[in-house]
């Protein structure tokens, strides 16, 4: 079953209606170089986090995003500064792409007071509300209703912002998904729910393949039950994702209706740091998928366009390595939260 799923992952590239040709996306290429840098940095950040986890500097769980970067990068590249988003616990790259500091993000993973959430949330609960990042959530599907309500609130207050909601294919079988997207569909009919749902379909709900967890694997068909149009996009191709994101975000903004994307992607690492042996998928399947690494896919495009060469790639890599090393050092040197943090933020102040 897993093999079949992997073949399907590749197929997304040919199926995606708007697979971005160089010509179509030419205007975006300069900023694509910027996003290439961010994707490389996020990848190295995750690799550093995995090492820090093994050294015992990071506790609890660690879910890394390697392999899926093009999805979050493509959508966050098209978000406006005052737009907002929610995601699940695989949230490090989302924070970094949105502009959160590498050091503060790493410090949160280390459980330090300079972390994005003062060390009180950890890897699964990154937050940066000043940048419109309303958090990573650790109960699968549990954040989807929040995003639906947030989208309603944005429109209720009279603005034209949109709310993005990232989720995995596994979350599509939670009650939260169905209950809240049905409401999004209802509210959207009145133009009151500018929501962009992004299904990051990495083909596995933890270790259960899509076919083993969903009776209907046609994701757009499932979303159509709630009057939400869903476009498929190759989630390994930044330019394709970005192009789809631009259309979807504009649609949600203009209409106040929820829209969705299914981004076919692949998670290179295990589900979490403890998922070492990955008995649910073969080594060949993983190495096949790695051949379409989203970073290499974008790299090739940028080379074709003459915007990147070997030395450029090398320079970007070195720069990213330095930035990540600095972040790790910042986290290492940051203090653990002081004991008085224990009882802070349980309730609002002054009540």
């Amino acid at each position, binding site marked *: 079953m897993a093999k079949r799923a992997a073949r399907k992952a590749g197929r997304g590239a040919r199926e995606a209606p708007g697979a971005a040709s160089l010509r179509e996306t030419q205007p975006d290429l300069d900023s694509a170089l910027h996003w290439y840098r961010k994707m490389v940095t996020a990848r190295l950040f995750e690799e550093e986090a995995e090492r820090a986890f093994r050294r015992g500097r990071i506790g609890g769980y660690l879910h890394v995003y390697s392999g899926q970067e093009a999805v979050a990068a493509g959508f966050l590249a098209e978000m406006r500064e005052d737009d907002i988003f929610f995601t699940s616990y695989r949230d490090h790259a989302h924070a970094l792409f949105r502009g959160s500091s590498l050091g503060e993000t790493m410090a949160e993973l280390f459980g330090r007071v300079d972390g994005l959430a003062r060390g009180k*949330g950890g890897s699964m609960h990154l937050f940066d509300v000043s940048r419109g990042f309303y958090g990573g959530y650790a*109960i699968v599907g549990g954040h989807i*209703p*929040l995003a639906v*309500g947030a989208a309603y*609130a944005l429109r209720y207050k009279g603005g034209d912002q949109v709310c993005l909601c990232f989720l995995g294919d596994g979350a599509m079988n939670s009650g939260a998904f169905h209950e*809240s997207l049905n*409401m999004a569909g209802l509210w959207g009919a*009145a133009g009151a729910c500018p929501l962009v749902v992004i299904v990051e379909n990495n083909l596995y709900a933890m270790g259960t393949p899509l076919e083993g967890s969903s009776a209907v694997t046609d994701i757009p068909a499932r979303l159509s039950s709630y009057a939400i149009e869903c476009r498929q996009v190759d989630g390994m191709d930044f330019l394709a994702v970005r192009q789809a994101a631009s259309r979807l975000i504009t649609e949600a903004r203009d209409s106040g209706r929820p829209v969705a994307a299914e981004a076919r992607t692949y998670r290179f690492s295990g589900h979490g740091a403890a998922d070492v042996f990955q008995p649910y998928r073969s080594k060949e399947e993983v190495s096949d998928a790695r051949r379409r690494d989203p970073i290499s896919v974008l790299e090739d495009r940028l080379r074709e366009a003459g915007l990147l060469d070997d030395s450029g790639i090398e320079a970007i890599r070195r720069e990213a390595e330095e930035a990540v090393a600095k972040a790790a050092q910042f986290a290492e040197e940051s203090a653990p939260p002081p004991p008085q943090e224990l009882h802070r933020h349980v309730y609002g102040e002054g009540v």
Partner: protein
Amino acid sequence: MAEISYRDAIRTTLIEEMDRDPSVVLMGEDIGLYQGTFRITADLLERFGRQRVIDTPISELGFVGAAIGMAMLGLRPVVEVMTWNFSLLALDQIVNNAAKVRYFSGGQVDVPLVIRGPNGAGVQLSAQHSQSLEALYAHFPGLRVVAPATPAEATGLLRTAIRGKDPVIYLENAALYSMKGEVPESDHTIPFGSAEVVRRGSDLTVVAYSRMVHLALDAARRLADEGVEAEVISLRSLRPLDERTIVESAARTHRAVVVQEQWRPYGAAAEIAAVIAEGAFDLLDAPVARVTGADVPMPYARNLELLALPTSDAVVEAARGVLYRK
């Protein structure tokens, strides 16, 4: 002071708060077109429109979760659960998101959310519609839990709830909806964590909340005929709990009875008895007694249902017990 019903106290407060603050919105099943199962929201759809009085599908998890998202974005949603029994479908949202998001975000968001509806037994609603869930919710840090016993308490606590920064579990009682009482006409609020001594007495303390306050007062009147003066405390809020008022009273009367409708094990009365033991152990002349519902799923037959619920007789008995009187 105007005399109005508990139902009208809630409804009027909702209207006043909606008039005062456009960020207050109402959500729930059948609160608009249907006018509300208990008519708390009667005519509010017409008055405030669909954007502010939102009829939801039968999706507690979905709409409570959406309300949390609205609250994080600065709205002040007041969500009706048709009865608190149905809130169990939304338990994950209440417990894992509403109660914790301020904390695990390191204080980056407020969650000014009120969830309200009737708690406890009605009349022959049987096992799935008769539960008292206050101890469940009062267990979780991050939530505030209130249980008004009178129209004045209903008004004062609801105002504080709507104007606050935290998720509030607001427990009404269907048997009280038609009860009338005086409500101050000013902009009356009751701070959370402040209990009220509703009857002064020197022989024992009876601690209660919600409908049980009325049982306690009835028992106190009957005890007075026997020459026993019971002090009765209406807690009003269970989390935060006004430990000071409870302990101060028990230390003065040396005896205490705690009354709750819910099941005995791990209930609110157990917590309150522990607070009294911790704060006034040396001053107690008897162990703290608990009057509670029977430890069974609620039966349908009226005679069995009555046996499962606390009565003022049981409060009188418990009072005699702590006084060592027959």
